[in-house]
């Protein structure tokens, strides 16, 4: 529960945003991991033998949390609430991979279990990095614009160039794009899931790839979600006066801290083997097993199982990207006569583009809202004000959208009612009559005496 697993996650997006940003960064980055630490300690350390059934349970819980977390996150217009929901998603991913590790461990493949364990811990580490970065970035935005509603922001990339740069790095890591750290751990998770062929149980072998596909869906939705966040916050035209008047953060310390985190995100994405070998030591202590013997880990390559099965070399990829990018940049920009001409945005010939014509958060996520409609409780209302002679001209249109979690009415409200009822029952005990209270003490005394004897 402390980890914020769907359906008992609702406290998390309520609690994290109200704290100041640096505290919510700590809450998301560190506090959630304490629960994880407890789970790992309990399952892998305290108990002698892990049952694979628990692994399946963890896998399913993790899948639900990951998907649910990111779907709820998509619908949030509030930046910090969105980030808090995305923590739910990331914890879900970690649970999934831990579940895989348990399944492999009990089925007699400790080296693959070590791989899953490693992927989970690495993702936890990465999540701490980029979620801290994003929360601090959100704090900087809030400080400068006094806004956290991304429908009110926009165009900040020109006002706050450095903040936007570090925030972009955070968004790219959390969307698990290659060259950044989030991708490496997700890649390891996929590699773990693809080793299911060694299992004997046919149902497990078909269940695990399905959950891997759910992981893919989660990653793709996360990318869509953070395109929304970055695109609406930093790009486009300012949507409010505050965001128009924003300027770069003055405090050097704030910038330095976020820049440090961003460069760590990038460096870990390029040279993941440093961290991987660190975590490998943990798994050798805890599981008494490390990665498979054939696996290759050097600064240039990571090949978790063997070189034939899968390999990934971020430095090579980075150099390839740099070469390709520079060549076409240099080739196309060589002629100074073809410098860029700045012109107004095309407005279809009608004139008067206003910032309000831009896509908003709820507009951006509308297709997804419609496709996964069952995941939320959606209350969508369109009211038209009519006027004119026949009362047929539309004067104004009001649009209201309320999106709610399923777990409030299904889990929490019944629980709340029950507790209230119980409290009323208990309340009857308190009569106010002193003799009754004496009677209680007497009965308790008798009971205790009976128990002792």
């Amino acid at each position, binding site marked *: 529960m402390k980890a914020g697993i769907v359906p008992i996650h609702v406290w998390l997006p309520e609690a994290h945003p109200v704290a100041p940003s640096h505290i919510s960064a700590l809450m998301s980055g560190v506090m959630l991991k304490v629960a994880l630490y407890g789970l790992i300690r309990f399952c892998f350390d305290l108990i002698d033998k892990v049952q694979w059934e628990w692994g399946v349970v963890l896998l399913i819980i993790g899948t639900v949390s990951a998907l649910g977390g990111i779907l709820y996150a998509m619908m949030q217009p509030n930046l910090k609430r969105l980030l808090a929901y995305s923590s739910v998603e990331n914890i879900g991913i970690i649970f999934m991979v831990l579940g895989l590790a348990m399944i492999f461990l009990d089925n007699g493949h400790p080296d693959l279990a070590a791989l899953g364990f490693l992927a989970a811990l690495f993702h936890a580490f990465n999540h701490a990095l980029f979620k801290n970065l994003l929360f601090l970035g959100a704090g900087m935005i809030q400080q400068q614009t006094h806004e956290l509603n991304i429908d009110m922001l926009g165009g900040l990339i020109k006002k706050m160039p450095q903040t936007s740069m570090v925030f972009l790095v955070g968004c790219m890591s959390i969307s*698990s794009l290659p060259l950044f750290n989030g991708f490496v751990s997700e890649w390891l998770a996929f*590699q773990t899931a693809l080793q299911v062929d060694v299992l004997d149980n046919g149902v497990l072998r078909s269940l695990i790839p399905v959950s891997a*596909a759910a992981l893919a869906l989660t990653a*793709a939705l996360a990318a869509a979600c953070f395109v929304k966040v970055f695109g609406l916050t930093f790009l486009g035209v300012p949507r409010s006066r505050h965001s128009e008047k924003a300027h770069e953060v003055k405090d050097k310390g704030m910038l330095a801290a976020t820049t440090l985190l961003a460069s760590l995100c990038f460096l870990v994405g390029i040279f993941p083997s440093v961290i991987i070998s660190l975590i490998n030591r943990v798994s050798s202590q805890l599981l008494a097993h490390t990665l498979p013997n054939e696996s290759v880990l050097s600064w240039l390559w990571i090949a978790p199982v063997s070189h034939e099965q899968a390999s990934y070399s971020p430095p090579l990829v980075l150099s390839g990207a740099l070469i390709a*990018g520079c060549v076409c940049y240099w080739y196309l920009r060589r002629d100074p006569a073809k410098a860029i001409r700045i012109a107004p945005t*095309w407005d279809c010939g009608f004139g008067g583009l206003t910032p309000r014509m831009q896509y908003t958060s709820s507009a951006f996520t509308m297709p997804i809202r419609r496709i996964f409609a069952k995941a939320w409780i959606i209350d969508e209302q369109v009211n038209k004000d009519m006027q004119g002679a026949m009362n047929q001209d539309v004067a104004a249109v009001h649009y209201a959208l309320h999106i709610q979690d399923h777990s409030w009415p299904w889990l929490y409200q019944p629980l709340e009612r029950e507790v209230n009822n119980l409290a009323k029952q208990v309340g009857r005990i308190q009569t106010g009559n002193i003799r009754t209270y004496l009677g209680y003490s007497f009965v308790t005394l008798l009971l205790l005496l009976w128990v002792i004897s």
Partner: protein
Amino acid sequence: MNWLIAILQTTLFVALAPLLAGWLKRCKCYLQNRKAPSVLQPYRDLLKLTNKQPVVSEQASWLFIKAPYIIFSATILAASVVPLIAVDLPTSASADVIVMVGFFAFARFFLALAGLDVGTAFGGMGSSREMTISSLAEPAMLMAVFTITMTASTTNLSWAISHVLEQGLVLRPSFVFALFALILVAVAETGRIPVDNPTTHLELTMIHEAMILEYSGRHLALIEWASQLKLMLYGVLIANIFLPWGIAQSFTPQALGYGLLAIIGKLAVLAIILAIAETLVAKMRLFRVQEYLGFAYLLGLLGMLSHIILEASR
């Protein structure tokens, strides 16, 4: 030597992509009783665009100007991973098929951001739709890919293709499903009919085109080229995984030339099939795409189940 061939192969990829687009257009024109432009027309278009002065909106930021270069190089990187004429090249070991999907996501991320950058409604519309479709397509794609990788027990494309070659002709039900799933996903991801119409002029029906509405000059050329490259990439992926015969396994000039001929032939046939399909099928509504991609996912799932049930049961 190996690196040289790898670079040569990537260059070939980049150079041949407009040719495939031209050939596809020619087939479509022929089927629709129209007079077809030359097969080389896409090259001329690209040249024309690079020679023009680009116009950029005054609202645009640096991201808008840099995005085409990022998109283009990410797509080239994805291309360098896929074996075109030869297997066992060093570039294909640097990244596997999951990383390739990652590169596509990378390019798409920046394309969608660029669509949002100018602050028009069309750009936002395109970005929103593109991200929706791609997030539905990704699980279907990975399901198909998992089927293949579980059969070959590797995610490295080059090794997977060698594995299929070694086994000779084996009728695998799972491959049939994975093939169809991958074709459906490829159509959705490259923005062809019935998911998106690359030649549409109506902004409201656009997906990919709506995002790049503000681009012009060399920026537009790069993005167009990247999307042609992506089309070719999916074609090569389908052709070389399911019908790898002809691809060079050694680096002799003869084998390489043979591999080149084989892949050109295979791509030409695939393009004809795509042209016929695009002529016969109408573009569907945006909210039908989920059913379409759901079907692709189902095919991928069936492929994987039949791999587990029919082919590798114990």
